[in-house]
């Protein structure tokens, strides 16, 4: 904070030239990292807890002696649910605060806005959320699921359960559009039927028309990529129209434990979700993580896939720094490939393209808002940023 104030003064008085900027990367045995999430605005509900998870990992590392003998100093910035703000704040973190890495971002739009900033300033970003793939910047470590680590396994699961007539419903932005483009190709390739495809503006709450269209299309299952509050409206209006998990199941990619709590578990009971992580995973690392998080942020706090990824990202970065013996982003990027560790998600490995090799689970929502794991990928799944069927010939360099 004090740093911020001195800087502010400098800027408006136009007086001190370069003098105060000596506050560079590693003064006094600390190393600065940025945490950049939406602390305000519509995305804050999801992102604050992700920032909390990253903070928890940083606190744990600091308590255990830091990274290469240096304590981690966090510079927290607010992306304010506004994509250009993410770009601005990323630039501030890299050029003014001189952080060595940034943990942050949720929406694809925020990541796309930050990408040029990280490339220009040769920074490093850890991005913890599932996304549409089709991107592999050397300056970003994508730890959330690639499409082949969430969407496709979900489709396979649905087909294996005999759901052959599929309706695709999503919010109107890049992730649902791309995920559904890929799903459509695979639905056709597998000989299943596409009942229909609908998109509702982000934050949209009126589903009457959509439900009429679903009714006319008579699907067996809905693959749902709606985001945020739209889910609540959708499930309410779906229920009012007489549907339930037994008559028309819905499998979702953006509903985790936290969203389930806010939607109201009653509306969701029996519905499905696919993720790389559920709070109920029984591995010991996860048990420890859940206990530590709930000790710090409340014993009923829900823990989700992106939170688990964000927590693990800090440890991944630490491992890479120690392997590279340097905080320098390009060295860290180089060192991180091949690192493997036990995480709350189970065993993960960083692939050459900067994404994780990780397992995929399908869960069914129970009464308490927790998901019971009912399906699991055979072993871990290698990340494929470009779906071979949909984007033939494309791959990461």
């Amino acid at each position, binding site marked *: 904070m004090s740093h911020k104030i001195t800087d502010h003064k400098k800027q408006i008085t*136009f007086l001190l030239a370069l003098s105060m900027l000596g506050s560079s990367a590693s003064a006094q045995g600390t190393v600065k990292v940025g945490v950049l999430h939406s602390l305000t605005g519509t995305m804050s509900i999801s992102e604050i807890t992700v920032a909390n998870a990253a903070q928890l990992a940083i606190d744990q590392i600091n308590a255990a002696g830091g990274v290469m003998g240096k304590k981690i100093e966090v510079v927290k910035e607010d992306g304010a649910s506004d994509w250009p703000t993410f770009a*601005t704040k990323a630039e501030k973190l890299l050029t*003014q605060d001189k952080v060595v890495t940034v943990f942050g971002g949720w929406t694809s*739009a925020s990541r796309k806005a930050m990408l040029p900033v990280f490339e220009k300033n040769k920074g490093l970003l850890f991005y913890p959320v599932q996304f549409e793939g089709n991107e592999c910047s050397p300056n970003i470590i994508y730890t959330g699921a690639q499409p082949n680590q969430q969407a496709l396994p979900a489709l396979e699961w649905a087909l294996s359960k005999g759901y052959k007539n599929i309706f695709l419903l999503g919010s109107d932005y890049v992730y649902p559009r791309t995920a559904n483009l890929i799903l459509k190709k695979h639905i056709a390739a597998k000989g299943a039927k596409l009942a229909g495809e609908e998109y509702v503006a982000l934050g949209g709450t009126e589903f009457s028309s959509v439900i009429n269209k679903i009714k006319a299309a008579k699907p067996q299952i809905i693959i749902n990529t709606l985001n945020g509050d739209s889910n609540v409206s959708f499930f309410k209006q779906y229920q009012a129209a007489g549907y339930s998990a037994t008559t028309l199941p819905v499998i979702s990619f953006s509903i985790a434990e936290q969203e389930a709590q806010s939607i109201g578990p009653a509306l969701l009971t029996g519905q499905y979700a696919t993720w790389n992580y559920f709070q109920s995973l029984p591995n010991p690392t996860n048990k420890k993580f859940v206990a530590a998080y709930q000790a710090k942020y409340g014993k009923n706090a829900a823990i989700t896939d992106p939170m688990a990824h964000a927590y693990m990202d800090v440890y991944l970065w630490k491992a890479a720094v120690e392997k590279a013996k340097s905080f320098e982003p390009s060295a860290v990027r180089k060192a991180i490939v091949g690192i493997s560790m036990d995480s709350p998600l189970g065993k993960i490995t960083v692939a050459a393209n900067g994404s994780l090799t990780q397992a995929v689970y399908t869960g069914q929502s129970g009464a308490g808002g927790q998901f019971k794991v009912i399906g699991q990928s055979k072993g871990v799944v290698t990340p494929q940023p470009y779906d071979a069927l949909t984007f033939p010939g494309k791959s990461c360099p």
Partner: protein
Amino acid sequence: MNRVAQPILLVVTAGALLLAPFYLSAYGLTLLGRVLALSIAAIGICVVWGRGGILSLGQGLFFGLGGYSLAMHLKLAATPKGELPDFMVYNGVEALPWFWVPFVNGPFALAMVVILPTLAAAAVAWLMFRRRITGVYISIITQALVLAFVTWLNGSQGLTSGTNGITDFHTLLGIDLRGEHIARNLYWCTLMVLGAALLSTAWLLRTHFGTLLTAIRDNENRVRFLGYHPAAYKIAAFALGGLLSGLSGALYTLHLGTISPAMIGVTFSIELVIWVALGGRNSLLGAVGGLVLGQLAKDKISSAVPDAWLYLMGTLFVVVVLVLPQGVAGLLERRKPAAPRRKTLGEVSDVVSP
């Protein structure tokens, strides 16, 4: 503020701005450059609202047209020959949409930065003023238009990249946008455009055209029955506002390296207006100053105390309207001795005179 202090202050400010790259930090410079780019749109609002009395809540539309015109070219320039922009591929688009095709040409795109917003503004104005739609109707219609534009952008991802917006640019007319001195040069370039926009608008408002604009704002019927065609003047002013917004949008896109629907929507458009109101809707320098200082304050305060920021901003809206209808510039003007009343800071025409 007397007549001696004012020019001195102007010269000092201009000098400080010109030399900013030599004493500001890299981040400070990008921030300032970005805000200066935005302030060009404020000049447009000053003309259209302050002088013309037309409150447009849809300046984001023209800002967006300017920004997207440039961004489309930058995106095509960053895409290997024979390929489609990445987002089109991910949306299953198989051929370059027709309206993208001419934007391959750099000079064409640069011309469109100016022409497209100007034409769009003129067309919107023609539709409204032809039917003598006035006052709050205009605010509501322009707001609806910018919402329609943003909704269309969001809903047509294959054509526009949707909510993500267009990003990841590399070169403009062969200049590497990630090069060494680009920040500094872009800053100066922005400052030049801003200066040129200020001077030419100030000149314009000193002509009979400026007088008539005020006359129409105050009493449109009187002017009409003196034989003028008020709609023509209002269309011209609105088109000028569109042009300036478009320029601002293009420069802002260059500074930020991205343009997206979230940057140009209803909230953005209203925020522009309130900064102008704070600075003084009748004063060019007031409008620009209000926007620049407001945005800088926003950057600082919103990261220091994010929650308080919205309260502060909301309160500011109310207070400015209740207490300072002519903005800070109006406040400075009021302090001056009343008569004999020469032209003052509040009156645009005098502000940039040598």
